[in-house]
């Protein structure tokens, strides 16, 4: 049974996120941002066009592009055009990808280099895979994996549209991913409760009587363990999730530390918070994490008018 019948949308949202009121600074502002639509944003596909040329073309069609603080490939876009960003010739030809600003952070933290071999463990629909390919100039190799055949279709069409030539696709449970080579870098943009995507997707099912965070946490830890075994010595893992739940964030980071990963600092030009080291959940359960988890990054919607995101970077030493 769904509790909270009779509550309106914003009351349900507030009730759902209440468990975070002690860890999120500026909590009221945080709540009010959850109800606001997300600004539109794109990433220019520099495999096909320069940012300058794309700006010219889009502005001629009435779109207004403003470069994001995050990275010169990212732009916030304003328009009144109701057909939107998915229905332009430029989109069809793969000159840009409609991507949330915060979604651009994990590949930047991963910092892939040309000629490396990269694994993207949960890749579909490929926002980050295509960004990684772009960072490598399609030199070197990306293995893009996902468990869902349906979502793999979207990944393929995005790779085709953006003209990515250095990727191979596999379809399996990442916890059972098999390979006879080890990777230089692995991105684990893990399946999660997706709580931090509510601005992009206001229809997100928020049931505060049942939370899936523990279930996801176990899955994420299993994936982190597999990542460890698939990495070269000195290899890099970036772990990201779009949720605020410490069970899926710091608790997974702590697990990564336990199995031997070292955590590294991530530097990004957007306002953020450190990972939390202490938390009490709604049932009064107290969590105390390894102090090193504070080197991970929490991004909240009200800091830079974005979605939310959690990122941690590790090295296998």
């Amino acid at each position, binding site marked *: 049974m769904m509790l909270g019948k009779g509550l309106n949308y914003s009351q349900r949202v507030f009730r759902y996120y209440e468990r975070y009121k002690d860890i999120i600074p500026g909590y009221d502002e945080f709540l009010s941002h959850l109800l606001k639509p997300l600004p539109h944003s794109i990433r220019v596909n520099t495999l096909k066009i320069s940012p300058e040329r794309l700006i010219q073309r889009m502005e001629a069609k009435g779109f207004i592009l403003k470069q994001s603080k995050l990275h010169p490939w990212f732009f916030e876009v304003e328009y009144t055009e109701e057909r939107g960003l998915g229905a332009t010739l430029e989109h*069809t030809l793969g000159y840009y990808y409609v991507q949330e600003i915060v979604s651009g952070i994990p590949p930047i933290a991963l910092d892939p280099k040309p000629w490396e071999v990269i694994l993207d463990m949960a890749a579909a629909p490929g926002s980050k895979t295509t960004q990684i390919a772009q960072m490598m100039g399609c030199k070197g190799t990306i293995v893009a994996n996902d468990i869902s055949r349906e979502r793999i279709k979207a990944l393929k069409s995005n790779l085709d549209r953006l*003209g990515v030539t250095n990727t191979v696709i596999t379809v399996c449970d990442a916890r059972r991913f098999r390979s006879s080579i080890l990777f230089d870098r692995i991105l684990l943009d893990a399946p999660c409760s997706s709580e931090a995507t509510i601005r992009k997707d206001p229809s997100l099912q928020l049931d505060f009587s049942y939370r899936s965070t523990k279930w996801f946490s176990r899955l994420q830890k299993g994936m982190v363990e597999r990542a460890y075994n698939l990495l070269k010595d000195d290899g890099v893992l970036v772990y990201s999730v779009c949720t605020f739940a410490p069970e899926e964030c710091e608790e997974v980071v702590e697990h990564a530390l336990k199995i031997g990963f070292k955590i590294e600092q991530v530097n990004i030009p957007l306002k953020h918070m450190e990972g939390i080291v202490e938390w009490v959940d709604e049932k009064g359960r107290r969590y105390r994490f390894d102090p090193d988890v504070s080197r991970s990054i929490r991004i909240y919607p009200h800091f830079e008018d974005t979605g939310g995101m959690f990122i941690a970077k590790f090295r296998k030493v």
Partner: protein
Amino acid sequence: MPSLERYRVCSDEEVKRILSFLEERYGFPRHIFEGYKFLVRGRNSIWVFSGHPSILEMIPGIDAAGIRALHLSIRKALKPTTIFLQVFGRYATKNIVKLQNEEEAVAFMSGGSIARRYDVDDGFVIVKFGDDILGCGFYSDGVLKSKVPKTSRVKFEWFKE
């Protein structure tokens, strides 16, 4: 899970034939494909891949590699794919059709045909509009047919003012 045929890296002989075809038909200089491997899977398709080809041996169950580049048509003519042309087409020098206005571009990108004489050889051609490579068309007897697959088509409404 459907069992997939494996990719195989083209032999030197096969690569030679592919490069000759691309050069003779479209004027692609050979050197632009340095750093790329041509792969085959099945009888009818050739793929182009810029990753390490050894990956194909080292990971089981590869579902796709690189982008599909060429396809053997029913009439046994080699057809470059739209996605391949969108990546490499700017290096081509012949058998290129330049569309004259936005209406033609719309028609082409929605899968339609354009009746007009072009100074190209019959068969598969590269279609451009302004700076943009739109994709692959089939030209014969004064009619240009779009070969842009459904997945790469533009939503028609975009152009309707």
